[in-house]
């Protein structure tokens, strides 16, 4: 909603007089505003200005959608992206869903980064672009090449065969992000690029990975003010809006902290719990290759459902 000043050009009724009288238009009750406009000398122009403002608001907001339209949009645009990580695909019924924010929680060395790298390589191999925000220098191109080579037989050593592998690797864009403000900058830039369709290619961005988002947010949480939590929630909304508007699946990882009674709980607190659509808990026995995954939160699956898968390292 633009400030009233900027609307003066297009709508001459909203002049400086109107602006000074009707600051914070949204915060006041319409009838009280109209009543107060009555008492003023130029009441007619004020009333017309109010009507015009209301029509601008009405035009700007998207119209109410009904269930059938939502379902059609979901079926056409919000497709499932297989990750190649069997445990996740088994639990999620096929893979990550475009338009949803999925969170992987787990203690250190439980397979979260491996899951991210596997998803990136699978999506890139299937033709989509991936954006990978790496906060801890854990992105490994060699590992991606191994994963791509394992399942599709691209031989890495052979110079002549470098073509297909190189094309797959080119679809994964990796950026190093070390604080939350940098993340906001990059997400805003991505939003602008996608909206203006600068990156118009055959390979649409299908997956956005942030490994790990908790290392960006934990430093700003804490302290007595609400700014840290506000930034965290705003980041969540920005990611969900990107996911929904441009049909991207977002995958973030989170670490664990000590909870009450000696157990561990996911980091980022209670407010973060209502941000992701789906939350999965990973764990791995020490010295074993088997990764256990269970659902913490899912719209259709009861929490606690678990799957096991073996990681090939």
């Amino acid at each position, binding site marked *: *909603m633009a400030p009233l000043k900027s609307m003066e050009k297009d709508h001459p009724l909203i002049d400086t007089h109107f602006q000074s009288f009707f*600051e*914070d238009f*949204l*915060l*006041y*009750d*319409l*009838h009280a505003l109209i009543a107060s406009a009555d008492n003023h000398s130029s009441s007619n122009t004020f009333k017309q200005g109010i009507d015009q403002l*209301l029509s601008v*608001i*009405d035009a*700007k*907001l*998207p*119209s*109410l*959608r*009904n*269930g*059938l339209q*939502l*379902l059609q949009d*979901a079926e056409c645009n919000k497709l499932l992206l297989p990750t190649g990580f069997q445990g996740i695909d088994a639990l999620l019924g096929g893979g990550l869903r475009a338009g*949803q924010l999925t969170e992987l929680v787990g203690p250190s060395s439980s397979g979260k980064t491996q899951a991210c790298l596997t998803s990136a390589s699978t999506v890139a191999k299937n033709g989509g672009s991936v954006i990978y925000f790496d906060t801890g220098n854990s992105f490994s191109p060699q590992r991606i090449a191994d994963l791509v080579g394992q399942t599709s037989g691209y031989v890495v050593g052979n110079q002549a065969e470098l073509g297909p592998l190189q094309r797959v690797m080119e679809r994964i864009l990796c950026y190093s992000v070390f604080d939350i403000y940098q993340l906001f900058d990059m997400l805003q830039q991505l939003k602008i690029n996608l909206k203006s369709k600068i990156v118009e290619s055959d390979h649409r961005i299908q997956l956005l990975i942030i490994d790990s988002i908790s290392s960006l947010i934990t430093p700003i949480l804490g302290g007595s*003010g*609400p*700014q840290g*939590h*506000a930034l*965290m*929630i*705003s980041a969540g*909304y920005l990611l*969900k*809006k990107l996911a*929904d508007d441009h049909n991207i699946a977002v995958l973030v990882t989170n670490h664990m902290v000590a909870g009450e009674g000696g157990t561990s709980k996911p980091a980022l*607190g*209670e*407010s973060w*719990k*209502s941000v992701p*659509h789906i939350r999965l808990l990973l764990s791995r026995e020490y010295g074993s290759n088997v990764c256990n995954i269970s659902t*913490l*939160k899912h*719209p*259709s699956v009861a*929490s606690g459902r678990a799957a096991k898968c073996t990681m090939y390292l």
Partner: protein
Amino acid sequence: MEKGGVKAWIDGDETAHDMLRRISAVRSTLLVPPLHRVPLRLGNVVEIVGPSPSAKTLILIQVAISFVLPREWNGVPYGGFDHSVLFLDLDCRFDISRFSQMLTHRIMEGNAIGDCDKTLYDLCMRRFLYARCSNSFEFLQTLKSLHYRLKREKDHGVGVHLLLIDSIGAFHWVDRASVFLSPKETNRKKLFLQSVSEAVVQDIKKLLQEHPMLVIATKSVIFGNTYSTTSNEVNRCSRNVTRNPQQIQYREYMPSVWQSLLIFLIYGAPSILAVLCYT
């Protein structure tokens, strides 16, 4: 006593499942727990509070389904209220496929043949209206323009008699951190959060006057549940709900102006359900 008589008496007349199906078709009440415990009518505002995840959105979906279904269709009684429903998604997390699954299941359950009537399904899906907001400004804009939109819906067909708000406290942190950006500081005595909440409450009240409807809002607990048997830290905003020996505390974070609008407050935790009434 004959053998047949005793066996027949033990077997009973119908199973619980059959009885539930029979009653829900005949008596159209909101048989969705926990709402079946409170007497609700149009114009009431109910809040459902609980930690995440505690199936709050699922309750909203079930209530929405019992509102959009007709009373009976092709001779099959469904026991619905035959109204439209508006879902304001402030969390931006709604999954339409879950709604569709539950609606299909409910239609198939009521039908003797066990299949899903496509026309009925389409009718119900069309009665479910959806809007999403990603900040307080969008929420206020939507509320202000809702009056005209609802009027248009009423002219087209069935009116909207249920308003569901998913997560009324979704913008709490962002609003708390916002400040007024204006040179005229002298007029801005109140906090931004306070002003926004008052505006929301006013708009909802005005809306309820023009379009009487039932408002159900969910709210997640954001300060964490502290299970304590000793209440040594009593916050003046805290509500205590006693259930057997455990004492569950949750801290209220919505401003008092929202509290004044509420009629009922339902607290749901994974194992405990309690209803608080406001008069």
